[in-house]
């Protein structure tokens, strides 16, 4: 049978997903052609927010790369826009003049951002936030300009605003409604969100209507209807989207707000279908991927002529992707009429949770502060679950673990676990039973569950738990250390110990690595584990070190390096400063900067100069590049400060001298403050010390980086000896049990504070940990000095050869 010709117009998330669904059903029924206006293969639009926030790069968000199209024999035309679907002749016509016949055609043209029809909207520096091009405009503007204005305080606007803050801009958000995200949140949650974002540095102008964008060629500011103005050199319009129906209109399809489709995604014209944000089902055009993927499934079956349930609409839910705030809303969350709300509001901890019930049925929810129950609630709403009073109480608790576990158990097989990818509980169970999946990662590879936003990981883990029973322990969830092996970190470390493995290649050979020499993920990890297991015998393998740790300096974007000498406890003296100054002059070092870690950084040192710079500095390495102890910040303390109760500088220097050079799974930072005012920011360090009258408090697991986490109080102790003893035990336990590249903050969350305390409470264990720590410390030498003295190494690593 000849293949039918299938054309997809719109190379975006919903359309390509539909093609994937079709390919799952049949590989040879269709000859497929895809047209897309954008010059890229299909990418994950959702993650543009993360790109802007700096968590990932444009290059990393591709969903289907070029080879996917090739492998599936799909003819792809990018950068080409379809201008008409001519259903009389059954062809599509493109702006490149191409005329392509079809048997079936899918219109998936997405949405277009809504641009306010105000004067100045077309000025340079005004952009929407929809695609890679817009994102690049913002990234570029942030390098040159300072002031950004985001019009629209909804999901998109706030994610853009957060991104621009991360890019170093001052950001004002202008919003018409009296509170933020009014389409997803109630006033209470909207206000809490505002407070939180103000803390992060955003400025809000609420109930403001923008009237004009002024400026010469480029935007210079905004004027509002009340006559006030602000300055801005970048304006992001995020006031909404509208279904992209221009092609549909041109082609005579029935449209309302979107392209009108029935329960099988058919338009009014035979053989023409619509899916995604451009389609309107039952009066609703959807603007989130989960419903679009559901539509794609139904459409794939319809086109392939398989039996399918009709599409009946979706429960909407959203989560704000802004680091440091958790906001979630689902279903119908406004109370009133026959709907009643149950709420918990904890002002102190900024925590708010609301369930909306109709009778006993849960129909909507809003979460602020902790959204971990989100997925669970969505599935209850989808099921229109009845909830009892006891369940009501447990659901409202900050962590509804018990209620949750039983919930997954009560879900039927066809209920969706991963909303984004439409993976049902049944599909996951069958992947476990028939394909032998035993980890969240394996399930992701087999079924796509958790592949998009990752929010459903806890639910997937629960399904695993339920299906595998006691043999599955979510805490011990096996995650392979990289694609080169199926073994987890614990298994690898176990094998290293049991078989006495001594170098990286041997580990990979004995443990049946899939690649001969590993990759950039496993090699540094194995190098660390080997050194951790056998500190005195193992010879560090520089070929398996990431550049910074091989060169003992931090590489810069232009290939030069930065140099940070030790400045114990942030305390320096005239001699050291003088030497630094001399080195800066002699080697013409372009930038000298005081770091956030209380020391001095020399930026832009040439590779060849590094050993000479170190030699002239004659100071130990500050390990500012290492998975190692970085700095110990201190406050001035009792020697000078009127509040100081302890010698913070003294303890800080002692700690830094003791642990400098120690290899750890990720970097370790410390801070010592002499009183609870905590001027050295002890609350946000891997270990923080706070002096109190007659002793010290030890805080662990703090982090001031990507995922801010306040430290947990571990112990209060009386003497500095106890401080050191506990620090050693704690750090050694971290070294022995954490995954490579796992900061203490994540590790403490994973293994649990109680567990750590239990281990350290045990006097015997504490002693053993201390002994192993001392052994690890006994072999440390200053790497800069070692390199200066090793001619061969100097030549191998730092020499640039010039031939003519």
């Amino acid at each position, binding site marked *: 049978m000849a293949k039918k010709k299938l054309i997809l117009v719109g190379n975006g998330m919903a359309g390509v997903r539909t093609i994937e669904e079709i390919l799952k059903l049949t590989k040879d029924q269709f000859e497929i052609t895809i047209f897309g206006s954008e010059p890229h293969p299909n990418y994950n639009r959702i993650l543009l927010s993360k790109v802007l926030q700096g968590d990932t*790069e444009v*290059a*990393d968000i*591709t969903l289907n*790369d*070029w*080879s996917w199209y090739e492998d599936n024999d799909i003819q792809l035309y990018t950068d080409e826009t379809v201008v008409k679907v001519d259903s009389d002749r059954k062809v599509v016509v493109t702006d490149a003049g191409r005329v392509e016949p079809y048997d079936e055609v899918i219109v998936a043209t997405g949405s277009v951002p809504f641009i306010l029809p105000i004067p100045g909207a077309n000025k340079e520096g005004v952009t929407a936030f929809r695609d890679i091009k817009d994102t690049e405009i913002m990234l570029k503007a942030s390098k040159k300009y300072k002031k950004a204005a985001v019009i629209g305080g909804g999901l998109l606007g706030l994610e853009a605003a957060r991104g621009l803050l991360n890019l170093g801009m001052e950001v004002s958000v202008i919003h018409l409604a009296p509170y933020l995200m009014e389409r997803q949140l109630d006033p209470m949650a909207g206000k809490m969100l505002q407070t939180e974002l103000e803390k992060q540095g955003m400025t809000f102008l609420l109930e403001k209507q923008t009237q004009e964008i002024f400026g010469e060629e480029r935007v210079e500011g905004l004027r509002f209807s009340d006559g006030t103005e602000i300055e801005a050199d970048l304006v992001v319009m995020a006031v909404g989207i509208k279904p992209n129906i221009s092609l549909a209109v041109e082609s005579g399809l029935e449209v309302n707000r979107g392209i009108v489709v029935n329960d099988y995604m058919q338009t009014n014209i035979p053989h023409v279908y619509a899916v995604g944000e451009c389609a309107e089902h039952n009066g609703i055009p959807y603007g989130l991927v989960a419903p679009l993927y559901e539509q794609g499934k139904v459409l794939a079956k319809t086109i392939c002529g398989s039996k399918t349930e009709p599409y009946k609409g979706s429960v909407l839910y959203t989560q704000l992707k802004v680091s440091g705030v958790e906001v979630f809303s689902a279903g119908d969350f406004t109370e009133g009429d026959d709907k009643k709300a149950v709420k918990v509001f904890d002002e102190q901890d900024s925590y708010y949770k609301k369930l909306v019930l109709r009778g006993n049925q849960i129909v909507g929810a809003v979460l602020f502060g902790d959204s971990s129950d989100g997925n669970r609630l969505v599935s209850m709403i989808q099921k229109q679950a009845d909830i009892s009073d006891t369940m009501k109480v447990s659901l409202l608790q900050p962590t509804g673990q018990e209620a949750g576990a039983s919930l997954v158990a009560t879900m039927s097989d066809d209920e969706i676990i991963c909303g984004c990818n439409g993976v049902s509980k049944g599909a996951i169970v069958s992947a476990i039973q028939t394909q032998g999946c035993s980890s969240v990662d394996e399930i992701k590879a087999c079924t796509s569950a958790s592949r998009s936003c990752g929010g459903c990981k806890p639910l997937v883990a629960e399904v695993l738990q339920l299906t595998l029973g006691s043999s599955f322990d979510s805490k011990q969830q096996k995650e392979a250390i990289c694609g080169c092996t199926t073994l987890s970190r614990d298994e690898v470390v176990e094998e290293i110990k049991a078989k006495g493995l001594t170098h990286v290649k041997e580990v990979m050979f004995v443990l049946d690595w899939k*690649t*001969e*020499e*590993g*990759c*950039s993920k496993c*090699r*540094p990890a194995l190098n660390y584990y080997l050194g951790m297991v056998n500190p005195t015998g193992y010879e560090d393998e*520089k*070929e*398996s*070190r*990431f*550049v910074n740790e*091989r*060169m003992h300096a931090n*590489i810069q*974007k*232009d*290939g030069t390096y930065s140099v940070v000498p030790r400045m114990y406890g942030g305390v320096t003296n005239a001699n050291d400063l003088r030497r630094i100054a001399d080195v800066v002059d002699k080697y013409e070092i372009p930038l000298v900067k005081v770091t956030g870690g209380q020391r001095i950084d020399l930026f832009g040192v040439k*590779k060849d100069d590094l050993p000479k710079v170190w030699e002239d500095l004659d100071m130990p390495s500050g390990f500012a590049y290492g998975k190692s102890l970085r700095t110990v910040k201190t406050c001035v303390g009792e020697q000078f400060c009127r509040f100081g109760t302890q010698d913070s500088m003294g303890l800080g220097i002692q700690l830094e001298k003791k642990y400098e050079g120690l290899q750890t799974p990720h970097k370790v930072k410390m801070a010592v403050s002499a009183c609870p005012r905590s001027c050295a920011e002890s609350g946000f360090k891997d270990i923080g010390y706070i002096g109190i009258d007659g002793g010290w408090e030890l805080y662990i697991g703090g982090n001031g980086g990507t995922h801010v986490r306040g430290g947990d109080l571990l112990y209060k102790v009386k003497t500095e000896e106890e401080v050191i003893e506990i620090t050693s035990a704690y750090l050694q336990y971290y070294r022995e049990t954490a995954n490579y590249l796992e900061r203490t903050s994540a590790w403490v969350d994973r293994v649990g504070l109680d567990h750590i305390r239990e281990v350290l409470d045990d006097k015997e264990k504490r002693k053993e940990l201390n002994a192993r720590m001392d052994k690890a410390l006994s072999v440390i030498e200053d790497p800069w000095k070692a390199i200066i003295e090793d001619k061969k190494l100097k*030549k*191998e*690593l730092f*020499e*640039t*050869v*010039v*031939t*003519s």
Partner: protein
Amino acid sequence: MVNKNISKVLIGSLQELPERLGKTFHVGNMELAVFKLSNGKVRAIENRCPHKGGVLSEGIVSGDSVFCPMHDWKICLEDGLVQAPDTGCVKTYPTVVEGEDVFLLIE
């Protein structure tokens, strides 16, 4: 066609090249990264990653690939191709080993 413009540049001895570590060479106004792989082969590529110009000589070498130290793109040293999911390529330069001497062939 005759290779009229190819010149052979001596860049050092095989023994001096560190195994599985890159070395930077300036040849004329070009900057190259030269690697001695664990199978003893010598490979040379232009020392700029097609992504954002990372210096490839400083990357982790595995088999016949190098991982860019900036954002971890994986680049094949045999043909200079960037490996999926990323795309692009860097220029490669043929090398010849004669006894202990390592030469680059440059057009």
